[in-house]
């Protein structure tokens, strides 16, 4: 009983911690034209907090102290805005209950089966153990696959350490929380066009197609999913001429995309691809393009410097060398690998059927001329598929084994970027029925 009660309490702790600095009552001043919804604000706050956690992870700081401070500030914020919060909850009670219930039901899955799955147990948990046992960043060198980024494990350790039962899975609750918030945030743009029940049905559909119990066993994919989603939302808002000049969105883009680098290895390439899209499509003047490019390069250099300083080198699972590349350059190898990649992409679409819905949405929106001023989505899709294809073409591992163990997860993370296409499709369907905006 105590585990279930504390799991329920943990949801409120998350909401309390992530209800600042931006909330539905003060964000209007910050973002001027676009009024963020409740779940949008939580997601943005999570990103801000993740950047704070990232900074703290390099120092040996008592995790209880940080948590205590966070909780106090959260409580103060809550009491300051309590009237507004209660008003909001009263007006949106049905969706809010659905939000709490969804998180709770996913928490229950983790509590019921607390055993970690492959990558979670083999390397992410080692890193979490270091931070949980008051270790330091430099001790990461002592664990397997230490060249993997550490932020996901740090957050895991942080919430593991700060619960009454000191049970490991409380740390993984954070992944569920960010994932569910992402799904609820995605429907904010159609909230006015659909009834609460319809919104919940759409959410349930998205959840059914994206929840994977295996990934809740310590994988970092839900973090990547959430970051991709937020990047897509920033791009969507920036593609609207009214929001184009809002500098906070730029800042939000840098802080969000920067997190890619610290969560997973492939995040390095996701960061580069997102930044290229950002500079090309959302910075119109040459001067602004140059400034953005400089910021992007500065953040990348900063990341590389820290990695090299602590780990003495910067490496991926496989070394990038021309020798390895030339070994893979036979036409026969390329063709056979290419067919395997295609096969496993199709298999992954069935493993994560959200992709089937994304493909339908792509066709549907294409017919609606949606991409006329949103070409960046197509470019983003092409870049990412090129990246995924090149990983497997380049790799010297057994391609069938490598594809079967990793491709579906790569595609799952990437699907976060395209969730909004599904939502936009619903948006267009309602518009077709002459629904007043």
């Amino acid at each position, binding site marked *: 009983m105590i585990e279930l009660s504390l799991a329920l309490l943990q949801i409120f702790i998350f909401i309390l911690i992530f209800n600042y600095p931006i909330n539905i009552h003060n964000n209007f001043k910050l973002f001027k034209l676009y009024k963020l919804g409740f779940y949008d604000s939580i997601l943005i706050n999570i990103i801000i907090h993740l950047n704070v956690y990232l900074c703290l992870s390099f120092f040996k700081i008592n995790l209880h102290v940080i948590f205590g401070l966070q909780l106090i500030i959260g409580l103060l914020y809550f009491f300051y805005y309590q009237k507004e919060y209660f008003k909001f909850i009263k007006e949106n009670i049905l969706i809010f209950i659905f939000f709490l219930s969804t998180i709770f039901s996913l928490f229950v899955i983790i509590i019921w089966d*607390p*055993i970690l799955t492959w990558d979670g147990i*083999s390397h992410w948990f080692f890193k979490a153990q270091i931070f949980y046992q008051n*270790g330091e960043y430099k001790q990461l060198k002592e664990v397997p696959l230490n060249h993997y980024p550490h932020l996901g494990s740090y957050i895991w350790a942080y919430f593991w350490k700060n619960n009454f039962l000191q049970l490991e899975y409380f740390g993984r609750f954070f992944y569920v929380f960010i994932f569910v918030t992402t799904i609820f945030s995605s429907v904010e743009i159609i909230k006015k066009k659909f009834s609460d029940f319809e919104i919940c049905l759409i959410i349930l559909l998205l959840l059914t197609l994206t929840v994977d119990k295996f990934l809740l066993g310590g994988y970092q994919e839900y973090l990547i999913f959430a970051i991709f989603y937020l990047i897509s939302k920033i791009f969507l808002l920036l593609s609207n001429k009214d929001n184009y000049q809002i500098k906070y969105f730029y800042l939000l883009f840098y802080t969000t995309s920067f997190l890619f680098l610290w969560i997973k290895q492939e995040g390095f390439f996701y960061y580069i691809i997102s930044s290229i899209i950002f500079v090309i499509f959302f910075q119109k003047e040459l001067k602004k393009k140059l400034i953005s490019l400089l910021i992007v390069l500065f953040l990348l250099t900063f990341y590389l410097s820290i990695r090299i300083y602590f780990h003495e080198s910067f490496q991926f699972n496989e070394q990038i060398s021309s020798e390895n590349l030339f070994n893979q350059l036979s036409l026969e190898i390329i063709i056979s690998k290419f067919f395997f990649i295609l096969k496993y992409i199709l298999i992954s679409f069935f493993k994560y059927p959200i992709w089937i819905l994304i493909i339908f949405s792509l066709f549907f929106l294409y017919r609606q001329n949606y991409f006329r001023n949103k070409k960046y989505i197509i470019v983003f899709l092409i870049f990412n598929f090129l990246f995924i294809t090149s990983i497997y073409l380049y790799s010297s591992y057994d391609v069938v084994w490598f594809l079967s163990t990793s491709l579906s997860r790569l595609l799952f993370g990437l699907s976060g970027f395209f969730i909004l296409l599904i939502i936009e499709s619903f948006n267009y369907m309602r518009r077709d029925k002459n629904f007043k905006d």
Partner: protein
Amino acid sequence: MLKYKKINQFFLLSSLLVFLFFINKTFLYSYTILQDNYETRMMKLGGYCEKYGYGFVEYLNKKIKFKKNVPVLNFGNYPSIESYFFDINREKDNHYLILINISENDFSKNYVKKDFQIIDKKENCYLVKKI
């Protein structure tokens, strides 16, 4: 009318919640959680000497109280449970080795002949020490 609509929505949402809990097996899992505590669930799902071999490694850790991090090798299609028992203040142990799901054949071929002494054994799980 508005109130009626709200009640209607509330009823529909309640049905949706029951459906959500049903597909996520929330009721069934909650029942199990209330029946079994954390350790029991870990033992059931992590296995004693099968699957991850959680029970066997836990038993050894309690019995022997290792001073170093003992490597755990799982020969079944499961990852090593070593990270659960990882202590950052201990070194890696080069003498002891915990083997999970190892077949008799593999064991005699790779360990018996290579100067390993059996310290503890349960079914196909072993704690061995290099002589």
